[in-house]
């Protein structure tokens, strides 16, 4: 029994990271209507950044996590300015955004492979004790912390998106990106904020993944699970992405404990295909109309 409980907790905390990925991906999709694979570049760059600062500068978990989050946000802003803004201002077709986002992801991956690819990088041990004992249960501290952080970050983001004027402008821009400027909204700035927020999520994702596993050039490709969660959740619905992320993480983890690590992905991926055949709008149930 307690093995299942532990698996569930592990799964949920991994699911929390999928949820971060799903929301980071979904946020940009909502505003600019393209699949932003360059989110994986932010995750990878941040994973290395988090490793280097925690290993060589400040061996403190909270400080380095916060620094990596902000760093990820800034990388998001830079990527948008470099590769998306120029084509947006020229009204380029959405396909071009997609191509640029994939190219950026590949570029970053290959740069890391060429420079740091021969080694694995392991984050320092932040805690002396890695587990809490609660009666018969043993709870991994790392997993509890991961889940807590994901939850806090998502609550923070939800507050910004729901309650602030910038958040309202982001939601307005997701249905119509031109009109907010008639209300005095600087749309370029709103897009930057969206990339900053998504980048913060990417930075935290990179840090948490780097801390849980180890850092290699292909760590960014782990956002694929988050993209799947965003789609199962019903793309366009950030809340749906969170639920789908948690479900995906928990399901994976429980399946691994029952049928093993090699069969699990096969079962998971085929279930997703079947789920989307039955319910193409995802679990949130909102039909999303892609404009182009």
């Amino acid at each position, binding site marked *: 029994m307690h093995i299942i409980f532990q698996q569930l907790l592990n799964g949920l905390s991994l699911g929390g990271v999928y949820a971060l990925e799903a929301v980071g991906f979904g946020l940009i999709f909502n505003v600019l209507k393209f699949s932003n694979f360059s989110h994986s570049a932010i995750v990878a760059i941040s994973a290395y950044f988090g490793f280097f600062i925690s290993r060589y500068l400040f061996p403190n978990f909270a400080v380095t996590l916060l620094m990596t989050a902000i760093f990820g946000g800034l990388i998001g802003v830079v990527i948008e300015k470099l590769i998306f803004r120029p084509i947006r201002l020229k009204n380029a077709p959405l396909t071009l955004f997609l191509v640029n986002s994939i190219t950026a992801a590949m570029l970053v991956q290959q740069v890391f492979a060429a420079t740091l690819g021969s080694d694995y990088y392991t984050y320092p041990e932040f805690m002396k004790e890695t587990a809490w004992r609660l009666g018969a249960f043993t709870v991994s501290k790392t997993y509890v912390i991961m889940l807590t952080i994901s939850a806090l970050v998502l609550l923070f983001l939800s507050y910004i998106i729901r309650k602030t*004027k910038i958040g309202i402008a982001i939601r*307005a821009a*997701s249905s119509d990106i031109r*009109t907010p400027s008639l209300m005095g909204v*600087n749309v370029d700035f709103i897009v930057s904020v969206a990339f900053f927020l998504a980048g913060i999520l990417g930075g935290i994702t990179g840090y948490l993944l780097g801390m849980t596993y180890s850092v290699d050039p292909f760590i960014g490709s782990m956002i694929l699970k988050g993209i799947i969660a965003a789609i199962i959740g019903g793309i366009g619905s950030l809340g749906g992405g969170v639920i789908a992320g948690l479900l995906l993480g928990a399901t994976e983890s429980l399946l691994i404990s029952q049928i093993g690590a090699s069969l699990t992905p096969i079962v998971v991926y085929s279930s997703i295909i079947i789920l989307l055949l039955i319910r193409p709008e995802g679990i949130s149930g909102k039909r999303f109309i892609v404009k182009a």
Partner: protein
Amino acid sequence: MIELIGCTVRYGGITALDNVSIKIPDGKIVSIVGANGAGKTTTINVISGMVKLAKGSILMDGESLTLPPHRIVKKGIVQIPEGRKIFPTITVAENLILGAFIIKDRERIKANMERVFKLFPILKERMNQPGGTLSGGEQQMLAIARGLMSDPKILLLDEPSLGLAPNLVLEIFDMIKQLNREGLTILLVEQNAQKALNISDYAYVLETGRIVSHGEGSKIAGDPVVKKAYLGIKEV
């Protein structure tokens, strides 16, 4: 006062506005009438900064007004766009808050919201509904209310009566007159020429990007040449 001087706009090879000069004096209602594709919306978009000039200039109180759209709003010039452009997924209240985006003071935003709720009580009832669930008339009211949220000096109204039932059209025109009496300067673009001319101090007639006639609203309304042009339009 806003002044357009010799404004020319081209979309690719097509000239949408050709050497257009218009004056919008403070406190007046000025209308631009003309057929579909005459360049009415382009004129409004040029003032709003949504469309770039190929030639000419726009002045506000003698100073150049070539700014990006969000900075134009800070100058007190607000466009109520054609087709309302209500944000469908956010609530009525959030649409209004967005209208006050340039205002930092929360109390002022609240006060402005109470003021537009007095003008359009139905919006208060609907404040927590998504904008997309409103009827066409309610959406037009919301579009005007949203425009008023930033305390503008000049309203640019693009086809406010389009697609509305006749009684609502009257209501909207009454509202425009009332706003003008309260001190707002209004530029009104309309295909519903007769009604627009009736409430206008001054009017311009646009045809394929050029001004073909201008004068006091009542004179334009009675001008046989203009009438003929309008008969032509009605056949389309």
